[in-house]
């Protein structure tokens, strides 16, 4: 197990290197205009462009730039480790802002995930147990609605209703937990709900499907033949195999969402990673793009490692060597 984890962590490093390399190649092979020209201001002189190039490090060859980027990443720079340089856009160091924004996004994702698990799993289980009932049909209909509903629409609608019309919640933006836990919570509630409803709907459907498959397994019949109570058959025998696959699903979703809550962040004016990545990509801001990319790649591969380890713990048939 220990060797397996080490090997997977080395894989993670390789994945990060490959993903950043790919980002570099895409950046330089498919340029949306020369970044130096872009950042040199209106009608720049060739001298000015050259000067900007040098200050951004764009005067060096691409392999050289990539080498420098990796070196900074590994050894750190004047703003700490890992070294991520300065933004082309505002010349500010990337690292502190990355940390700042990561907090916002991670708050959003974790709160959302807790909520969607708390909704999705019970709804899926109960729908499976009462398959074909009114409850099942209403739940699955509602789930289909939230799977189909665009997040921006749901977000704007919820803001309109709960903020504008009812005035129950204070508008948008992020308030740090340290500043005021109550305000923090009330500001995050709608984003959590909107993010969670989509995923709760997906999870409810997945859990329901798994449970229905598990119910027809031979070992469930065996459990009944042993004379176990119906409650124990469901809670111990069906749930165990019905819910375990959710772990893999959750790990992948959490990893992808690290850079993928763009719409939710935009609608609720949360200055998170997704938002930042979007702006950086639009503005050819290579250091910011790379920083978010590194974080997302690392998050996805480490979370999938965690999922695989958890799976091996929960399912004895899975063992890694």
């Amino acid at each position, binding site marked *: 197990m220990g060797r397996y984890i080490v090997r997977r962590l080395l894989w993670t490093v390789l994945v990060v290197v490959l993903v950043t390399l790919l980002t570099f190649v895409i950046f330089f092979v498919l340029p949306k205009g020369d970044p130096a020209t872009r950042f040199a201001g209106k009608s720049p002189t060739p001298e000015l462009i050259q000067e900007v190039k040098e200050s951004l490090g764009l005067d060096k060859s691409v392999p050289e730039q990539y080498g420098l980027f990796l070196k900074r990443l590994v050894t750190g720079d004047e703003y700490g480790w890992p070294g991520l340089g300065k933004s082309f856009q505002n010349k500010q160091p990337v690292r502190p802002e990355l940390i700042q924004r990561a907090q916002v996004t991670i708050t959003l994702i974790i709160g959302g995930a807790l909520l969607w698990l708390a909704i999705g799993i019970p709804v899926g289980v109960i729908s499976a147990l009462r398959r074909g009932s009114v409850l099942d049909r209403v739940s699955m209909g509602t789930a289909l609605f939230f799977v189909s509903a665009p997040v921006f629409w749901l977000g704007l609608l919820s803001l309109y209703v709960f903020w504008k019309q009812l005035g129950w919640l204070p508008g948008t933006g992020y308030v740090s937990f340290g500043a005021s836990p109550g305000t923090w919570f009330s500001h995050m509630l709608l984003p959590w709900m909107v993010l969670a409803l989509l995923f709760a709907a997906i999870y409810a459907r997945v859990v329901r499907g798994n449970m229905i498959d598990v119910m027809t397994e031979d*070992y469930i019949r*065996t459990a*009944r033949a*042993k*004379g176990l*109570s119906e409650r124990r058959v469901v809670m111990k025998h069906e749930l165990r195999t019905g819910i375990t696959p959710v772990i893999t699903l959750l790990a992948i979703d959490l990893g992808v969402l690290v850079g993928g809550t763009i719409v939710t962040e935009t609608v609720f004016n949360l200055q998170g990673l997704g938002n930042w990545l979007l702006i950086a990509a639009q503005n050819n801001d290579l250091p910011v793009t790379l920083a978010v990319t590194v974080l997302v790649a690392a998050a996805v591969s480490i979370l999938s490692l965690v999922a695989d380890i958890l799976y091996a713990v929960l399912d004895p*048939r899975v063992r890694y060597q």
Partner: protein
Amino acid sequence: MSEVLLEVRDLVVHFPTPDGVVKAVDGVSFTIERGRTLGVVGESGSGKSITFLTVMGLINRKSARVSGEVLFEGRNLLEATTEELRHIRGDRIGMIFQDPMTSMHPMYRVGDQISEAILAHRNVGKREAGARAVEALRQVGIPAPEQRARQYPHEYSGGMRQRAMIAMALVLDPDLLIADEPTTALDVTVQAQILEVIDELKQRLNIGVALISHSLATVADVSQDVMVMYAGRPVERGTRGEVFDAPLHPYTLGLLSSVPRVDVRVERLVPIEGSPPSLINVPPGCAFHPRCPYRFDPCDRDVPDLRDRGGGHDDACHLSAEAKAANRRERLDMQEPVT
């Protein structure tokens, strides 16, 4: 004297579906006595499994129409409450299934799955239940049961897993064991071992056994009584000697002459023509008549009931006892003993 453990009277299990009523079990009666094994033989869809799942209360009663009586130790299980049935399952009646690979929960240790049955019915501690689970594994011939109890089902071979299933079914000293095709999914060499384990435990614990199989050969060695089923009904019923030495029903004859045998020279195997009927459109009269080489006038009109028709034991065929004896000679005597 003989003690009747289970008496099933005129059991009918019909499943209404949009395509019609599936007559899975259509009038089945038999008894199982303490210390004896009833071999129940029939093709897939003959109703043998559904009969015993109904006895156990493991069919969905909401989707089935059930009538008749299932008397277990004097009580009609068809009228028992869910909770009463739960107390009988696992405790008074144990059941094992066809595929030991899928019949145990893949994520729990074998010992824990056995203890769970004990804890469901007895007021004992976990440690005590665990010790009894280990003892049960030892009883069915699993070597190093202490270690084996801590393993998961996937660490067992097929035969060992079926032994563990037997241990699970018998750990609470039930009166009756229902074995639903317990050897079908196993290697031939292992099949004999499992049958031997069942037979040995039956004698030692003095329980009754229902051994369900699609093969007469499987039940031949370890059953005292035999019932042959076709399309939801029993067509022949008697002691092992009666049914094997003097089979009466053409279907039983067909089963016997379509199986290769080692002890006699067989010129050729005679398959039973056709295939089992749909249980939605069971042929009128004797359900076997479309496949029967001896059918005559009443077969497609009158349903033959199961009774002693002069052949020495019960069968459900309109032919005269003399005709049956003649058919038997023609079909089975062409198999000459190997000299």
